[in-house]
């Protein structure tokens, strides 16, 4: 029998899904351990997350957290940087580092039967990295050269300038890689000092997910990290999240890029903290406005106008107040129109065009239906549980997520948009051909644009 094409098939409700049960443990040295039994493949994924990221860079030492993280696998004991990489490679293990605003995460994925050896090496490099002067000099030079290269990468230029426009000299106001003067001034002793101060079991959470029992996973964690002792007492001062951001005026800023085929755009303002009770409403609001393909802004800028390959909005979440922003790369000739359309949409969601029932249903469902797919691999699970630790969320978070989002009503979304998204407060940053676009930007009402260098 051929398919009935007069209407789309009904969608059946999501089957029940058992979210990971998180085992909570604490080693004698204070290290928090989280274990998750994930029985799919013979693969174990681990994340060692340390409280302290780019936001912990002391003033004038922007980039210190990231270069310290980079130095971790540059050797330990008798092993050189090459030996360390060789050690992981001979296990087929994958080692990765991520430096965020509030935390630094070291992750390792390995076949189950190699995981003890992988963890032993991971613990060695984290607890006792060599931090040799010679390696530091090479790594710092590579990072300086990378900074230089980034001046030609429009999205990177925009990221860097936008953080500066949002936060000024607040600890969140720079990329993890830091700035050229700070990196030039950095010394190996500062890396050693940062390491002994921040890399402490008392500031860390270790998450393991794999096809092993909680007991076995805990044994692995203890076997690798029990010998880790706290260094100098924690004296990191006020956490970046608790530093009040400056109240900066809305601006139009341009990083000139003569002859650029497109304008790289960031439009937004400081908005909300990850721990706001409005978080569920903000997720739904963003899904309506610009968080996904079918959101208003992408449909307008891409599917209706063809200005861009894609436009998205979102919160750059962190423990402190996060920016809400649009990001898109648009055809140079469409720059002013794309900015105008975006600002219009920022306001319309709580004024002229509050979300329709249809939009609300779509936004909620896109966040909740199929939520289970985020728990397919051991790495996804380990990372999700590390997020719980980063944001002080309860272990019941995954179970509660779907009902919480499903309960968000249209009125809450409008109120959240009213409070957290405002075209009149939005700063606009353009990395693009200033000569070609200057005249068209004038009617936007921003006044004279601020011109920024590519390494602002």
């Amino acid at each position, binding site marked *: 029998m051929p*398919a009935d094409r007069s209407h789309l098939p009904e969608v059946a409700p999501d089957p029940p899904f058992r979210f990971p049960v998180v085992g909570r443990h604490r080693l004698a040295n204070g290290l928090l351990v989280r274990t998750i039994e994930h029985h799919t493949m013979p693969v174990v994924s681990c994340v060692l997350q340390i409280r302290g990221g780019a936001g912990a860079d002391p003033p004038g030492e922007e980039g210190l957290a990231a270069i310290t993280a980079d130095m971790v696998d540059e050797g330990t004991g008798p092993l050189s940087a090459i030996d360390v990489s060789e050690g992981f*490679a*001979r296990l087929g293990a*994958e080692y990765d580092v991520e430096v965020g605003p509030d935390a630094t995460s070291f992750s390792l994925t390995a076949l189950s039967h190699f995981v003890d050896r992988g963890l032993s090496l991971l613990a060695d490099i984290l607890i006792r990295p060599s931090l040799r002067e010679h390696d530091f000099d090479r790594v710092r030079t590579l990072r300086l050269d990378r900074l230089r290269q980034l001046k030609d990468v429009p999205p990177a230029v925009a990221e860097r300038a936008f953080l500066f426009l949002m936060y000024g000299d607040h600890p969140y106001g720079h990329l993890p890689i830091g700035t050229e003067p700070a990196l030039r001034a950095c010394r190996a002793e500062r890396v050693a000092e940062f390491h002994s101060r921040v890399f402490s079991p008392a500031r860390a959470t270790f998450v393991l997910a794999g096809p092993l029992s909680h007991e076995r996973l805990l044994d692995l964690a203890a076997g690798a990290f029990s010998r880790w002792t706290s260094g100098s007492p924690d004296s990191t001062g006020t956490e970046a999240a608790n530093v009040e951001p400056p109240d900066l005026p809305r601006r139009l800023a341009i990083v000139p890029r003569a002859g650029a085929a497109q304008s790289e755009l960031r439009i937004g303002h400081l908005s909300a903290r990850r721990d706001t009770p409005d978080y569920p409403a903000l997720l739904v609001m963003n899904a309506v406005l610009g968080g996904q393909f079918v959101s208003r802004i992408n449909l307008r800028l891409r599917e209706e106008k*063809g200005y*861009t390959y894609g436009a998205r909005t979102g919160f750059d979440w962190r423990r402190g107040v996060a920016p809400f922003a649009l990001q898109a790369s648009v055809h140079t000739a469409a720059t002013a129109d794309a900015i105008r359309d975006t600002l219009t949409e920022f306001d319309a969601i709580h004024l002229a065009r509050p979300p329709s029932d249809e939009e609300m249903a779509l936004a909620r469902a*896109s966040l909740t239906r199929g939520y289970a797919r985020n728990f*397919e691999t*051991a790495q996804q699970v380990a990372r999700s549980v590390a997020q719980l630790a980063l944001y002080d969320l309860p272990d019941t978070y995954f179970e509660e997520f779907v009902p919480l989002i499903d309960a968000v009503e249209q009125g809450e979304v409008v109120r959240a948009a009213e409070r957290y998204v405002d075209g009149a407060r939005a700063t606009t940053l353009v990395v693009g051909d200033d000569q070609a676009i200057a005249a068209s930007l004038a009617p936007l009402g921003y006044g004279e644009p601020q011109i920024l260098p590519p390494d602002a």
Partner: protein
Amino acid sequence: MTQAAAQGGREADASLPFVKHTLANGLDVIVHEDHHVPIVALNVWYHVGSRNERPGRTGFAHLFEHLMFEGSAHHDTGYFPPLQRAGAVLNGSTNTDRTNYWEVVPTGALDLALWLESDRMGYLLPAVTEQRFQTQRDVVLNERRQNYENRPYGLALMAIAAALYPEDHPYHWLTIGGADDLRAMRLEDVREFFRTYYHPANASLTLAGDLDAGRAFELANHYFGELPAGARPGPAPPSSAAAVGREVRLLLEDRVELPRIYMAWHSPAIFEDGDADLDLSADLLANGKTSRLYRTLVYERRVALDVSAHQNSRELSSFFLLVATAAPGQPLTDITTLIDLELRRTTDEGPSGAEMDRARAQTEAHFMYRLQTVGGFGGKSDQLNAYNVYRGDPGYFSTDLARYRSATSESVRGAMQRHLRLDRRVVLSVVPRGQPSLALAGSEPVSVC
């Protein structure tokens, strides 16, 4: 670490079981059950890519892919909304050889996804309007600006493809196509392309995830069985043989801070003899801190910022690419000399035993890691379709793994000797604008746009 580490007790072998049936209209349907998470992956490959385009009409296969998301006859309002409302994630991509489309849906939305996939396979054209065509052409022109024109070194591969392959060879151009060609396209071109390439006999459908195989085949037949077969496309039009008989030196000026050297060689087609050996040689030469060139260029001598290599495996013929970015003030000539020295040494001596052990350990692990996701790019459903379309055998996973397991120092050395010859390659210097003297001596300026 000792050799024993790399040879520790192996657990269950990596394997990718499946069932395959071909519908009466020629559509291959492959099913793989995995009940860990209540999701199903749909994955469709059409055996068409930019290699089926003609000079002057390049970029068409990819532009067409965009139109597949704009709606079809019985659902004429966009492909994304009903699927995102059902909690799906979805995407598609085009390369030289194939176009793929996928959805990952909660199990309850399987019917919906099959309905939509089958509707665009069978009934796309009524939904393709002049307006949608124009808009998606603008979107693609913006994709081109974003990923090629406005990106440092973004035009290098265009120059390399054009130099490796003669003008009438379908790998002469990149999948994104030429900007002028994209502008010259007409709505009428869509019709012919759809009729030629988008039908069951030129497609492969894989369903993987939390579903019962028997029920999956019933559903596949229910939604796709009614579609007319269409003719399998004939062989691609003949083109000049691709060969580079000497060292071709090229120069491209770009908006970059630091010069970069690209070396490209013709190499065996995907799954052909030597393909896996060159894949392994890419890792041992230039990927990661353990590689020979990283050690020499970045770690010891500090003349380069980065180095990488890749065997770009494709259906008609592959190319092997080696790339290194100069550290400030370091001449490309010196870097090239060091690379050539290492290439010669490796080609003469072959990889060491320790290097082969490492490669084997990484192979075992990576084939296992590949089995962790059912859907999306590179997931199990995508792999089954790749093996089915390129080899006619979804079960080729184990043969593929065996290719890597059976590689030896001698086979890697042999493949490098045959294919990575210093006197038969394209060497492209990409240098900051206005500084052509930073290129290798004797490099011919090229312009791409």
